[in-house]
């Protein structure tokens, strides 16, 4: 019994060490997708400057689609953007855009003119209304929405070929069945 007490620190350390080993492989910033399996939240975003059509939640009904949160200020979005343009060109799936937190109303439209516009519809979200409703913490984030308008998957960070081939495209085909 007495010996066991002296052994206790070592045991506690080993348990902690186990957690550390597992924890090192995890990203503490990545939050769970709270909307998974739930209908897309209600939102009604105004059009970005120079357009007359905004983006609201019922636009997503009746098709499998991707909702992409981006911003002209976001470096990683630049990395992701050409891939979204490619999806648009190949007509694989409609992508809707939430232009998040633009300080300048001209910045978003100018960015899309410069790098191409992959979005079926784009809504302007300067106050994070839709972004908070979706539980977004950073850009880019992408949500996969099914025909009933239910959120099925969240991807944090840029979508690239690897993510597309391994995760998004198989899921899209599944949802289309």
């Amino acid at each position: 019994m007495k010996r066991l007490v002296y052994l206790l620190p070592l045991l506690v350390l080993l348990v902690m060490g186990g957690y550390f080993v597992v924890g090192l492989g995890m990203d503490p910033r990545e939050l769970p997708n709270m909307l998974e399996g739930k209908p897309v939240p209600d939102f009604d975003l105004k059009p970005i400057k120079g357009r007359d059509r905004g983006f609201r939640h019922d636009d997503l009904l009746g098709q499998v689609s991707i909702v992409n949160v981006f911003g002209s200020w976001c470096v990683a979005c630049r990395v992701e953007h050409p891939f979204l343009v490619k999806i648009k060109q190949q007509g694989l799936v409609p992508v809707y855009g939430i232009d998040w937190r633009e300080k300048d109303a001209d910045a978003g439209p100018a960015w899309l003119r410069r790098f191409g516009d992959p979005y079926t519809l784009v809504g302007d979200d300067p106050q994070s209304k839709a972004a908070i409703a979706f539980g977004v913490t950073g850009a880019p984030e992408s949500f996969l929405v099914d025909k009933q308008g239910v959120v099925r998957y969240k991807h944090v960070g840029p979508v690239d070929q690897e993510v597309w081939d391994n995760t998004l495209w198989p899921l899209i085909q599944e949802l289309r069945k």
Partner: protein
Amino acid sequence: MIVEAGHFALILSLFVALVQAALPLAGAQRNDPAWMGVAAPAAFAQALLIAFSFGCLTYAFVTSDFSVAAVVANSHSTKPMLYKVSGVWGNHEGSMLLWVLILAVFGWAVALFGRNLPPSLKARTLGIQALISVGFLAFILFTSNPFDRAIPAPFDGRGMNPLLQDPGLAFHPPFLYLGYVGFSIAFSFAIAALIEGRVDAAWARWVRPWTLAAWSFLTIGIALGSWWAYYELGWGGWWFWDPVENASFMPWLAGTALLHSAVVVEKRDTMKAWTVFLAIVAFSFSLLGTFLVRSGVLTSVHAFATDPERGVFILVLLLIVVGGSFALFAWRGPQLTGGGLFRPISREGSLLLNNLLMSIGAVVVLFGTLFPLFAQVVDYKMSVGAPFFNRVFVPLMVPMIATMAVAPLLSWKRGDLPGAMGRLWAAGAAAAAAVAVAIAVATKTSVWGPIGLALAAWLAMGTVVELAERIRLFRTSPAESLRRLGRMPRAAWGMTLAHFGMAVAIAGMTGAGVWKVESIQTMKPGDSVNVAGYVYTFKGASEGRGPNYSYISGVFDVTRNGQPVTTLESEKRIYPVRGMPTTEAAIESLFLGDLYAVIGDPQEDGSFATRLYFNPLVAWMWAGALIMVFGGVLSLTDRRYRVGAPVRRRPPAAAQPAE
């Protein structure tokens, strides 16, 4: 060239550390004086080499050598000189170099001041110290080389995070590391003692000054960090229970407990295994902090190097060092039986109780800090923030502080609690008065306000009572009391001051935590706002340029009852290199609280956003910390602890028994 020399010296120091670890440890085992004798000169050489290496890196920063990657990433040619120097440790690589520099310098100090340590204990202690060096030098050389070149060298650097460009933060890390790393000495002594299987009064006396030094440094480090947050973040917060703060607080708690339990070992030859355990734990917490900050395993605003490879390396290092020590402890600890018996109500008993409460406090902080990690592993993402720690940690400290006043009045072995409480009537009266004052002047009702002030008053008065007892004030002639006061050992003064400082700091924390008054609004020049009786009048704002930033400066006149109190000038700075703003709060510390003003963004109608505060008793926190540190330093100068310093009538070296 100089950069390569620094790198080379660092590599060389690794080999020196290897020798310093291998030969003395083996020599102590074989009882070979020549091998053991290698420890001291090796420790000297190691410290010299690392100091040279550190000097080279500093040179690269000072001369803005942008062929060095660390300089590019963390410096800029327009930066003021102080921050070019502090930039050396304002980044992961450089701060690790500072870490091992301090480790080596402490090792050298043991070699220097430990002349009359038994040779085997000294050899083992330095050997263990060198083993730690080997681990961290390897970590630097293999994963975080500060001398890595940037190819091609850019024209200018990326600058430092402007929040770090601040005198408080320039000196915060060195003190913190002096504290963290200082506990390595107590750790090495503990491991050496476990190997030798002997812990006695002499051992405790050797460990105490090193622990005291580390504790004093860590106290300064934590206070500096807290002070920095208070004036730099622009809203008067000073403690957030952030994982990085907790990482510095846990070793402090363990170190404080160690200081006290070492006294029991020294005076009463008991609580030995516990003391050795605390010595191991204090440094283990330091290592854990290093791991948590640098691995990114927990989310934190502070973590400045999040890299899985480094994380794995430090984790392995942590598990080897701490795991090895705990294994040794499990094996040898049970043999460290103590002699002196004591009752629960006694000096030892109360020290043990407070040791326990502090340790539980440290464990609770550890648990709360790591819990999100545990939860994440089972797929539950959650946060443990300040509300949890305040609710759980603060109540634990209430009985601890209460006991703190009583313990010094109890005698060893068997104390007289009613007697002690009787002598503490003045402290009780002070506490009652504090409650009355707290309720009378409080602007907000709160339970913790009166409790905090009562504890502070109880402890402060209790400390004074203890001092009065010691000099037999009013029970003998004033002349005799004065003579006793003059002859009080410095270590006793140290305790009195440290406890008194704690009381002052508690009052400060209570005031600042409970009764802060805040007013946020837009103001045009000429507008006035009343904050807790102080009228702030906004005089206007102007723009200007500093060395590497531009700023908006706002001026406030403060009056109370129509009488001018002070003029405050707050700045909002923008650093173009990083494009980041910082706020420079204007603070006037008064006895009863700080006037605190922050200028914000200009509004469209020509007014400015302003934040004005009255932060009660904040200066007491810093004053309390300073008093505590002063007590620590005073205690450190006590002749009895100057191990190996030339003392009168020191026996010749030959008298030192070989063990």
